[in-house]
């Protein structure tokens, strides 16, 4: 296997083909990002399918196989399809999804009719046209690769030059128009670039699967970043890798079409992104959710401990209560209770005596006081949001008594007193409000 791999890589023809598929993977990944963000994923699909009749027409008119004329034919019929979709949407009651479906299937059907006609009447299978359905990288010759390379390079260059313009056009077309961007021109340009990136992929990936090559790298890339620039680059890399891997697999496996293998490669990369991407991947989300649940239940328990101890009055060390009392104070998911209590015990925040009664430790009192204080201050903020608007809290965690301006702090404290919500039980030392400050109030 490895030997064969090295042997293949030394073959100059293989090198050319790999370069070609890599570049078309990169360009479809880059332009696919824009297609995806402009919600034009399906337009790419329609254009790819519509390219088939264009390719067949070009063959009929030119008389023999020629990639450059095929590309011209595919581009023209792709554009006609895009225009037709717009025309149908604007001039009938048919909605976008139906218009896309209509144009896609009709033009593909027409393409198949032409293809059958050619195979029966003009040179039969020698035309190599059927390779355009599922794609066959091996059918590329040196000249084809050169053409694809040049087109891909031009597409990437134009995208780099107009990156800022494409970005604002994609994010907020109205604003772009308002500040004087010639939006009709740039819309058209971007559309042409997308059509071209679809068209150069046809021979390798095939009309049926080309849309996946446009969209999948972009979706995968979106998982790894929140910046358009990074997304475009990552998407290009994913597209390039998939192109190379798919082509290589198909040249080493006899009779395998390239398109499906490229799509399998890109889909694998997408699945890896979906599952393992930091922040947005499924694994990372699941871990975050579990952590949050655990932390919430621990904090809820501490709040209950504090409330119970506070309500009992007197010294905290003398107050203890049963598990039922704690659970009745604030509901905590039963599966989490024992785990969370163990965690609290381990951190020496609470203690349990022989009669299975629970109580706060000095350290636990300090922490639960802090939590309760923030919780109650947050409640005050919610009740008087209009007046305290500048604070912009969105949860208890945002409350930080140290960072607050002193007048706001005093206002919140007096609100707590007015509503009889000031914490009555103060630990000996704490980071929040000291005993003195409360007395001063």
């Amino acid at each position, binding site marked *: 296997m490895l030997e064969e791999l090295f042997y293949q890589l030394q073959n100059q023809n293989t090198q050319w083909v790999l370069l070609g598929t890599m570049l078309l993977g990169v360009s479809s990944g880059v332009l696919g990002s824009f297609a995806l*963000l402009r*919600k034009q994923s399906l337009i790419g699909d329609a254009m790819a399918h519509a390219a088939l009749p264009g390719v067949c027409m070009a063959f009929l008119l030119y008389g023999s196989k020629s990639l450059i004329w095929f590309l011209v034919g595919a581009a023209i019929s792709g554009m006609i399809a895009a225009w037709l979709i717009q025309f149908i949407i604007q001039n009938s009651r048919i909605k976008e999804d139906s218009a896309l479906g209509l144009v896609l299937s009709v033009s593909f059907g027409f393409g198949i009719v032409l293809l059958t006609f050619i195979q029966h009447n003009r040179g039969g299978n020698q035309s190599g046209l059927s390779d355009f359905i599922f794609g066959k990288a091996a059918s590329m010759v040196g000249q084809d690769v050169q053409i694809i390379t040049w087109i891909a390079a031009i597409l990437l260059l134009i995208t780099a*030059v*107009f990156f*800022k*313009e494409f*970005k*604002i056009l*994609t*994010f*907020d077309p*109205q*604003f*772009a*128009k*308002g*500040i*004087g*961007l010639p939006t009709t021109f740039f819309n058209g340009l971007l559309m042409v670039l997308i059509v071209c990136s679809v068209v150069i992929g046809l021979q390798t990936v095939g009309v049926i699967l080309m849309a996946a090559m446009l969209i999948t790298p972009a979706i995968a890339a*979106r998982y790894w*970043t*929140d*910046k*358009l620039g*990074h*997304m475009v680059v990552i998407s290009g890399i994913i597209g390039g890798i998939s192109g190379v891997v798919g082509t290589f697999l198909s040249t080493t496996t006899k009779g395998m079409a390239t398109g499906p293998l490229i799509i399998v490669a890109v889909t694998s990369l997408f699945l890896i992104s979906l599952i393992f991407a930091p922040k947005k991947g499924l694994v990372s989300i699941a871990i975050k959710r579990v952590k949050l649940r655990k932390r919430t239940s621990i904090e809820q328990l501490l709040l209950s401990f504090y409330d119970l101890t506070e309500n009992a009055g007197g010294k905290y060390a003398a107050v203890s209560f049963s598990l039922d009392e704690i659970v009745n104070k604030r509901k905590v998911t039963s599966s989490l209770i024992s785990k969370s209590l163990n965690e609290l015990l381990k951190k020496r925040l609470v203690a349990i005596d022989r009669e299975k009664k629970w109580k706060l430790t000095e350290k636990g009192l300090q922490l639960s006081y802090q939590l309760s204080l923030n919780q109650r201050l947050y409640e005050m903020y919610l009740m008087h*949001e*209009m007046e305290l*608007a*500048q*604070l*912009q809290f*969105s949860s208890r965690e945002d409350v930080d008594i140290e960072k607050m301006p002193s007048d706001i702090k005093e206002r919140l404290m007096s609100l707590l007193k007015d509503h009889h919500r000031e914490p009555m039980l103060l630990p000996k030392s704490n980071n929040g409000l000291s005993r003195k400050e409360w007395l001063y109030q």
Partner: protein
Amino acid sequence: MNPVTVENLTVAYHRKPVLQEVGFEVPEGKLIGIIGPNGAGKSTLIKAVLGLIPIASGEVEIYGDHYKKQRKRVGYVPQRGTVDWDFPTNALDVVLMGRYGHIGWLKRPGKKDIDFARECLEKVGMLDFSDRQISQLSGGQQQRVFLARALAQDADVYFMDEPFVGVDAATEKAIIALLNELKARGKTVLVVHHDLQTVEEYFDWVMLLNLRKIAFGPTSEVFTMDNLQKTYGGRLTFLQDKNVLVDETK
């Protein structure tokens, strides 16, 4: 020179007029509210003035000249719902887009532009959020980012489409403070507005619109029961006085 002069403006969608023969002259340095029931053509008026939609007839001038020549003097805050907030970009980047018209095409924003964008974020109290992905912002914070972007346009006349819709108390306050600051600096601001209760508090001048211009002038003169009834027709319930107006179309 008036910031905005509109003459005989008519706009039609699919042959149905949505604005008919609207004409007015906007005075300089005022906060102006544009109010009217749903479908009255308030947003359409702004878009037509900014050349975002084709006009059927009429003329629009910004500082006595065609809008295309005065673009740099105009700032625009579209409705928040018109963009996809899941777009991969952060708050600072969105504000920088306000500089694009000044930077010119093909050039990248420089350090000056970035510093200016930061200043604008600070003015709306959002500097701490400059690196935040925009989908992570609350509705009010997104609205403030949009306002900061308009500030970054460094314009003389601003058009804002429903900036108060769906925002929290903090943002409403911030927007009002900002509007007053703009006014103090001699800028003119036109705001499409929904809430009749706050019209008198927020705006110096007001336009009442319902397909046609019903009235336009200083709030104290124009914002009357009579005019409101003309604008809203039967869709308005009056409860004793206009402090408790209820727009039934809502």
